[in-house]
């Protein structure tokens, strides 16, 4: 391969460094109306009436809608491919505006005005009367006997409970000589914090509602809006320009359905609905907080005889992606170490907190923290080596996961561990740091992970691509799959160039999706795009190439099977001497007076396979015990993501994920008023997002395998880097201090109490 595997600049880099790249907010015309949403200031209750008289008096107000004016339709918001099987459909549990309020910040009314100041002022002047109920802010409160139902359809507030058992746990634990290790682990609610706020603008044109939105999933947004408004798919058109990050938050319908309704209300005039940063924090989606109880039975040699897990996931007010997250987490618990009997029970529970949805790595950072912390706890209890323990029990090549049949087609995990170990000199340092006594101590930690690349067989995996040849021998590449910052457009262009035998400058990526013209794809989520959509590129490129060669054969009076394309030239196969250029073929195909034809290709790929990516994080930290502070001295992630498509963007994904993982492990959490459920740190000052100063130098390394199922031997890379960082830090803290802290973030407040309990604060 000539292009795949090199390090190339992004195809959109120039537009982005010059300010030419257009994002949603840059496309709104100057005369758009501005919409603002009124959010509830109570977490659990019922809106009984509004007094709009003062709000209507604000000059510039065009329309006011309340929860009493919206269609009586409950709709789902999760960005999953739709399932035609009723049992697998997403839970439809919200309306465009809600009378029954379920969290502090719920959408209850909206104003459309001539300008932002008028809209904001009118929202402030709406008076609301409501009945308030006791907010249920924790899983325990929501599950308590007698707790009121947050949704009538789910008395008891459990959205879904699921369980599985591989082998017999009860029989397995009867084996003599087993060591029992037990632990509770907890992860917090955090937010995606893409720097572009949540927004869309909507208008009507040619009888259609057009929504321009910062979304990861334009085709799915069209389906959700059609359901929410009770109108046809064809009545809607979704346009997705460049977006300022997604990380899963935009794998959900956010502002779009309401905005579509608002433009209909004002006769199709353009309406912009842009959330503030505070609203983006509170009223979009967050990462599920989860709690895990793990029990392991381990043999003296370190092999796992039996393990059990009970998991609780805090869903917040609305179902969104619901149980899919914790189900993914407990499946990950099984897949990572598929040894012995394994038993799981998982609950997703409604509470009166902001809605949790998809976020980078979809439940796996949560289980990753619990599981990898637990494995170090096992090592401590048994005296076994942390690396040996993992390699003995971890997933091996050829593993077939019993419930899903997902097969381990390739693995470089053992090599990843070796590489990371050698870089950090982990074993040597771990021993050296084991018995420190000072106030400032060092520690090393590590954690591994496995990650499913796509969503097969849980959900549909389909993707389409179109290529249209231009007269100069270049082509437009159009994907349903979306660029969300991860570099999708660039790797698609590389794949196209590689397969076609053309150079990168000949591939024009049409980055913007428009559901009226863009081929179908479910969008950017999971780590599916290079794997699933990449195959659509490959198939389309092969198809286009054969059309080019057919025409060239006609022109040259040769056989198409004997021709190939190399560096934009038609050549004899295996000879390489250029016969004619692709551009000449393109011109002739277009203008031939006898045989003109439009050379274009479109193919779709229905993927029915999946594969695991792997990796490891090794970290060295310094702990200032009296200050209760952790400083990261050195950190490396080593990934097996199959063959790399673009080294530059691959590395960038790892850096970004590591940074998010560092934030997850050390600083980030959303805080709520325990009485009212109001979010307390809904801004970028009080929410501790990693800055350049907080971030250590990040090292990204790879072990390349050639996955037989990936279009170019590649597998997941976008999400995984976030997974192993937090547990590696926690295990480094354990190594440094002997104190096991089982919840994140490992911030000074948490460390203070942990160190005090351990009696090392003197």
């Amino acid at each position, binding site marked *: 391969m000539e292009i795949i595997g090199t390090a190339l*600049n*992004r195809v959109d880099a120039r537009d982005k460094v010059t*300010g030419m790249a257009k994002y949603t907010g840059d496309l709104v015309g100057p005369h758009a109306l501005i919409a603002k949403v009124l959010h509830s200031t109570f977490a659990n209750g019922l809106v009984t009436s509004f007094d709009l008289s003062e709000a209507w008096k604000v000059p510039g107000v065009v329309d006011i809608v309340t929860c009493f004016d919206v269609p009586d339709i409950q709709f789902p918001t999760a960005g999953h491919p739709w399932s035609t099987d009723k049992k697998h459909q997403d839970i439809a549990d919200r309306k465009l505006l809600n009378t029954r309020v379920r969290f502090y910040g719920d959408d209850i009314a909206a104003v459309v005005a001539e300008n932002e100041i008028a809209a904001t002022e009118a929202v402030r002047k709406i008076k609301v009367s409501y009945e308030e109920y006791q907010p249920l802010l924790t899983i325990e409160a929501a599950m308590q006997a007698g707790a009121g139902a947050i949704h009538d359809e789910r008395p008891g507030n459990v959205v879904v409970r699921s369980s599985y058992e591989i082998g017999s746990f009860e029989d397995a634990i009867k084996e003599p000589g087993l060591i029992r290790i037990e632990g509770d682990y907890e992860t917090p609610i955090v937010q995606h914090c893409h720097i572009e*706020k949540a927004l869309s603008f909507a208008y009507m044109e040619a009888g259609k509602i057009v929504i321009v939105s910062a979304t990861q999933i334009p085709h799915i947004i069209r389906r959700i809006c059609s359901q929410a408004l009770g109108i046809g798919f064809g009545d809607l058109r979704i346009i997705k320009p460049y*977006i300022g990050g997604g990380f899963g938050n935009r794998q959900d319908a956010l502002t779009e359905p309401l905005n579509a309704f608002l433009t209909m209300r004002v006769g199709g005039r353009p309406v912009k609905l842009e959330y503030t940063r505070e609203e983006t924090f509170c009223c979009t989606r967050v990462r599920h907080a989860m709690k895990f109880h793990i029990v392991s039975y381990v043999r003296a040699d370190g092999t796992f005889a039996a393990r059990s897990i009970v998991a609780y996931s805090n869903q917040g007010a609305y179902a969104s992606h619901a149980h899919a997250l914790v189900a993914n987490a407990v499946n990950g618990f099984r897949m990572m170490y598929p040894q012995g009997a394994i038993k799981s029970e998982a609950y997703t529970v409604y509470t009166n907190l902001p809605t949790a949805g998809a976020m980078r790595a979809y439940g796996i950072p949560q289980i990753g923290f619990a599981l990898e912390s637990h494995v170090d706890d096992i090592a401590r209890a048994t005296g076994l080596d942390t690396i040996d323990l993992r390699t003995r029990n971890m997933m091996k090549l050829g593993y077939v996961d019993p419930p899903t049949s997902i097969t381990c087609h390739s693995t470089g995990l053992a090599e990843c561990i070796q590489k990371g170990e050698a870089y950090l000199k982990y074993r040597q340092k771990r021993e050296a740091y084991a018995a420190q006594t000072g106030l400032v101590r060092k520690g090393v930690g590590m954690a591994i992970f496995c990650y499913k690349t796509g969503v097969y067989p849980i959900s549909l995996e389909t993707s389409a691509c179109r290529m249209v040849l231009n007269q100069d021998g270049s082509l437009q590449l159009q994907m349903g799959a979306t660029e969300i910052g991860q570099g999708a457009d660039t790797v698609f262009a590389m794949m196209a160039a590689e397969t076609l035998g053309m150079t990168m400058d000949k591939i024009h990526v049409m980055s913007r999706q428009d559901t009226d013209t863009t081929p179908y794809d479910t969008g950017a989520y999971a780590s599916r795009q290079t794997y699933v959509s990449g195959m659509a590129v490959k198939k389309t490129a092969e198809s286009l190439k054969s059309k080019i060669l057919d025409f060239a054969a006609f022109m040259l009076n040769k056989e198409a099977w004997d021709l190939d394309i190399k560096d934009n030239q038609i050549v004899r196969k295996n000879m390489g001497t250029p016969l004619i250029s692709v551009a000449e073929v393109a011109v002739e195909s277009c203008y031939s007076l006898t045989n003109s034809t439009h050379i274009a290709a479109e193919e779709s790929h229905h993927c029915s396979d999946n594969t695991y990516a792997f990796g490891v994080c090794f970290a060295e930290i310094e702990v200032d015990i009296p200050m209760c502070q952790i400083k990261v001295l050195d950190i490396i992630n080593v990934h097996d993501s199959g063959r790399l498509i673009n080294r530059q963007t691959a*590395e*960038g994904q790892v850096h970004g994920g590591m940074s998010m993982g560092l934030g997850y492990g050390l600083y980030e959490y959303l805080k709520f008023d325990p009485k009212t459920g109001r979010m307390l740190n809904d*801004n970028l000052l009080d929410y501790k*997002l990693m800055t350049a100063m907080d971030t250590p130098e990040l090292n990204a390394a790879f072990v390349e395998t050639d996955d037989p199922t990936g279009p170019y031997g590649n597998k997941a890379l976008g999400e995984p880097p976030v997974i192993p960082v937090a547990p590696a830090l926690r295990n480094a803290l354990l190594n440094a201090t002997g104190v096991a802290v089982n919840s994140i973030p490992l911030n000074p407040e948490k460390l203070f109490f942990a160190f005090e309990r351990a009696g090392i604060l003197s």
Partner: protein
Amino acid sequence: MTRKTVTCTINGKRREFSIDVRSSLSEMLRGEASLDSIKHGCDVGECGACTVLIDGRPFNSCIYLAVWAEGKEILTLEGLTDTKGTISDIQQAFMDEGAVQCGFCTPGFIMSSIPIITSDTPASREEIRKQVSGNLCRCTGYENIVNAIEKTQKKRIEERKGSGKK
């Protein structure tokens, strides 16, 4: 609504705008001057996406009143590309180092880096990190951004040495 006329220099050109006195500089630059490189990530001075240079110093234009711009010299990202479309070395470095992902923070970062790369005193990576810590990026982990700034700074110092300028 009170309006006022503001006269200032934007990217080397003298401009005059009649604006609502309540507008921020970022609103004026985006709305009146169509300089869309200025992004809004928070509107309250937390994220740095709206950074522009005012008389050579980086400011969050979202919390800088447009009326304060009277008589000032303002440089935005658009001003770094010359009339022939040639981009500056720092923009090129952001491309080459992979310092751009979603790109939403990029204009602000490039503007914040200008005082560093134009300074005669070399800044360590630590100092670079400190100087751009008012700019938030969720995509890159900052590693390649720091690389791009560091490389451009070194290159410029070399160039100045070479040309004998101070």
